């Protein structure tokens, strides 16, 4: 049986595990706990003109022979209370390693249904730069019943544009409105090759 925060507090209080000062009410304590654990909504970064509807539900976007460093991109979809968002759909799209979006087909485009724990993961390649955008980036569109659509982009802390200091230089791309969208890149080996591993959790706001 899963208890919500208030029920858990009530049980703890009933069993003496929690002793409340006379000036603190149970709802106030529950609210404070909620607030302390509240997750910040993932910042918006615009949809851009390259979204394509009805992408296939592929998790392996990288094909043998694709240029570019392999990328393992993963994360979890939460709400602001830190709970998994049920029935979410995640559209992910990015350029190939040369900076081209596939308009005719669906290369490097997918729509994912996260698992029961809200997790998603794809294998792809690190996208390239293209002339009219400053930074390498991956587009996200996340929708779920009862939640506001989340439109954002993920950036790579290793992008040369940041000169090794993304906290200072992330605004070099005018569309990157928050350092929270710049994610560290772990270089790992999968036994056969080096892979750029990036984790990008997504936090949705209730409608």
């Amino acid at each position: 049986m899963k208890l919500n925060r208030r029920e858990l507090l009530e049980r703890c209080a009933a069993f003496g595990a929690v002793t409340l000062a006379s000036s603190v009410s149970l709802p106030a304590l529950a609210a404070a706990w909620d607030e302390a654990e509240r997750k910040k909504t993932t910042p918006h970064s615009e949809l851009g003109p390259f979204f394509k509807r009805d992408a296939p539900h592929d998790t392996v976007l990288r094909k043998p022979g694709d240029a570019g460093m392999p990328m393992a991109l993963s994360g979890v979809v939460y709400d602001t209370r830190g709970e998994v968002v049920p029935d979410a759909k995640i559209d992910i799209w990015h350029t190939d390693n040369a900076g081209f979006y596939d308009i005719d087909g669906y290369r490097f485009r997918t729509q994912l249904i996260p698992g029961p724990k809200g997790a998603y993961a794809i294998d792809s390649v690190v996208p390239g730069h293209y002339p009219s955008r400053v930074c390498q980036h991956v587009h996200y569109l996340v929708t779920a019943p009862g939640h506001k659509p989340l439109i954002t982009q993920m950036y790579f802390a290793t992008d040369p544009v940041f000169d090794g200091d993304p906290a200072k230089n992330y605004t070099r791309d005018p569309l990157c409105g928050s350092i929270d969208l710049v994610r560290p890149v772990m270089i790992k080996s999968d036994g056969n090759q080096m892979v750029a591993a990036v984790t990008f959790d997504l936090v949705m706001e209730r409608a």
Partner: protein
Amino acid sequence: MRSLVPIALLLSCAISAVAASKPIAKMQLPCPAYYQTLSPDGTQLVVSCRDMSMVVLSVPEGKTLRTIPVESKAYSAAYSSDGKWLAIGYQGGSVEVTSTKGTASAQRWQGGPRRIDLLSFLPDGKTLVVGPSDEAVRVWSFSETPRLVATLPFEFGGASAAEASPDGKLLVIAGGDTAVRFYDTATWQKTSENRDFLLESFALQFTPDGKQVLVGGADARITVLDAATAKQVKQLPADGGSYIVGLAMLGDKHSAATVYLDDAGHKPPHAVVWDLASGKSSTLGDGVVPTCGEKVAGKLWMCSADGKTLTVSQYD
């Protein structure tokens, strides 16, 4: 822009595939610029600079009438069809409407919650369609104190193009969610929609009789929709590799000019004229890449910029 420039506004009007051009005005380009917005009477020109400042120029005199500094970050501009009003949309979601003749004081208000990417007047000259980035469209009446008259939502994303019918009774909006929706401007109820587009549309143009709408966008082709049902009437071949960012019916009423831009910047802009009946196309002959277009006193006026000089030409 959307991601890069407000491409839906890049070109909204007509260009001509034919005839020689006659220079109307040449002036120094005040800044590196994406695109310009020409007033319907041809007397003013808004230059949208790459640094998100804007400069309003007098076309006859070539002098600067007003400069909106880079700190203000102006993202969109539109003239009313009678040329009386200029609307400018800003980074923080505010909208400013000024009288182009200086006959009324400017109004500025919070037109949306986020950067304003799209502005479009209804033909009544009193109603302004405001498209904040990735947000629902807000329709404002500004004849007195600005009043919100409608909010037109999307499944997700924001508006990428909006166009009123010639009689002002219908408004068609292309959304980031790829749907094209029609609204009754008397009730602001949706009358029909087309959800067959897989990619976003950036340009909309009613036919002169108001019965059909040409739609162009990331699929690089013209799709003709019935304005009453939103159903597809016909589709022309694609000109791949670029997007349609502007289109217009030409004066012969059976040709449409399209402007293509590769928003990723890999390919140069170009313009093509399509015969809507045969589907045949021809590239705009003189190699001019238009950066604005407007019908002025029945003639087609276009801007072009070479990086230093801005030329406004009339096409017969």
